[in-house]
């Protein structure tokens, strides 16, 4: 039996077609994400799998290394302009930063800076899917993360450094500081951004204060939408590559911000002084007192 459905309504059909054409970023691997972000045909990977720049430390600990150590560095174009994507593969060792993986990022940022200094601007984009420092490389991972921070702070004076938190692993540990240093931060609702992992917070603060199995609580504190609504991120996008490409280009077009959020010291000291730790706001409550769009 035939029947007409709402699907024939032109507005709904267009929306449905767009929904079906959506390409999920979350479902992609890091390399595919980098390929999908860059203009078609422009992707060129540096230190790719066949260069075999692996971790020198993991095999010593009986852990199988990955040929690219979990970071993809790719040059190409974004909207016709030179860009370099540094994409972390969250499936390998939880995206943990080791000596090589972190050095790929720090090194690429340094080369981008050199290019900017000689009048060849290049847009740096970091795809942050990482638990922080790779514990199996501890102090070297940490040292090179510090070098990433140094590179970003220098580079972002010349060109906006854009971070994207685009997956289920989230962005934690020393790499959450990296996110905090970016000129612009793009998040998905599924993202999480926080210095400390939920399990560690539960361990240190106790389950009454923080229950790591309470997903609602976690996302209300550190989830993508919460971070965007309280001014810790600049764009909240749906899980779609073309939305990401568009957002990256429009953020890049804004140029270097007059002041980065990590430089907004007086404002944040004032805001914290007005909070009573004995009667703190909850996630939704914070959105009223620390609204988005006022942190840079």
């Amino acid at each position: 039996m035939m029947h007409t459905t709402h699907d024939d309504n032109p507005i709904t059909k267009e929306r449905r077609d767009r929904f079906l054409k959506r390409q999920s970023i979350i479902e992609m691997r890091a390399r595919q994400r980098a390929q999908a972000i860059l203009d078609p045909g422009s992707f060129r990977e540096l230190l790719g799998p066949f260069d075999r720049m692996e971790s020198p430390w993991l095999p010593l600990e009986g852990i199988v290394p990955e040929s690219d150590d979990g970071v993809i560095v790719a040059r190409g174009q974004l909207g016709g302009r030179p860009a370099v994507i540094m994409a972390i593969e969250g499936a390998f060792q939880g995206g943990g930063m080791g000596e090589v993986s972190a050095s790929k990022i720090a090194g690429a940022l340094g080369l981008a800076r050199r290019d900017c200094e000689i009048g060849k601007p290049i847009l740096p984009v970091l795809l942050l899917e990482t638990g922080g420092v790779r514990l199996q490389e501890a102090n070297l991972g940490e040292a090179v993360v510090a070098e990433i921070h140094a590179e970003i702070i220098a580079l972002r004076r010349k060109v906006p450094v854009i971070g994207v938190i685009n997956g289920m692993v989230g962005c934690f540990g020393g790499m959450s500081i990296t996110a905090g240093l970016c000129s612009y931060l793009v998040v998905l609702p599924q993202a999480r951004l926080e210095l400390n992992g939920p399990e560690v917070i539960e361990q240190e603060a106790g389950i009454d204060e923080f229950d790591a199995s309470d997903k609602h609580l976690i996302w209300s504190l550190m989830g993508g939408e919460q971070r965007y609504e309280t001014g810790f991120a600049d764009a909240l996008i749906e899980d779609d590559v073309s939305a990401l490409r568009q957002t990256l280009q429009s953020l890049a077009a804004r140029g270097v911000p007059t002041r980065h959020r990590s430089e907004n010291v007086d404002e944040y000291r004032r805001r914290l002084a007005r909070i009573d730790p004995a009667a703190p706001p909850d996630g939704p409550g914070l959105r009223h007192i620390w609204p988005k769009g006022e942190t840079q």
Partner: protein
Amino acid sequence: MSATTSLSSRGRIWFQALADKAQPVNTGLESVVVADASWGGERVRLLAIVPDPQNRFPRARHGELGLEEGWTLAHHVREAISADRSGTKRPIIAIVDVQSQAYGRIESLLGIHLSLAAAADAYATARMAGHPVVALIVGTALSGGLLAHGDQAHRLLALDDPQVVIQAMRKQSAARVTRRTVEELDELGKTIIPMAYDIRQFAKLGLLHELITGVDADAPPAVQIARVKERLAAAIADIRKNPGDLTSRLNNPDAKVHRAASIEVRRRLAEQWEV
């Protein structure tokens, strides 16, 4: 005084020793101490995190680097940058003894990641503005705390002492997360240098400018304090001759052996950068 209490006050001990008669700057927080010491006629800004059992944020009472601590450090570093804009850039010394970052629900909600980013940003900005920035590690220097307060220095110095520990995570937690025993971690640290908790092993990585030996880290007599001051002054002079960024941590003999991969990655990236 228990061992733990005296350990967690190493920051205060060394801050007071190095600040000597200098009047502390009013930071508004008991947990952040700042002073402009006078060394050989030159003004040197010292900063440290110390325990504050009355901290209004309960998770930052034992020398942790919490929300207000990060932003306050940032403020006082930037204050020095502003004040010295048209004059001599005073050296800035981070005295590092940080139990960890603060962990808690409020810390999470209110963006402790950005607070630490602000501190790191301020130190790096001072470094780039021409201030010699030095970190002196006198106690614990765990991950987030060190990234925010010390790691952006031109040069890292540490006291050679068993309780001077630089690491990514507390041993018990690291054991849990990597599914090993503490004994297994200790064993690994003997051959895998980046995993060691021993400062002498750490020194082999080429990240430290100097490991200062022969100093009583808990109760230094005047002559040892003077020596540490002298080593810091020497580091400052070295920076003034050779400022640069953090690349001194790569261009040294230890790094060439134990950070060979860090160097090779950069070299090969540079080779492949242009088609």
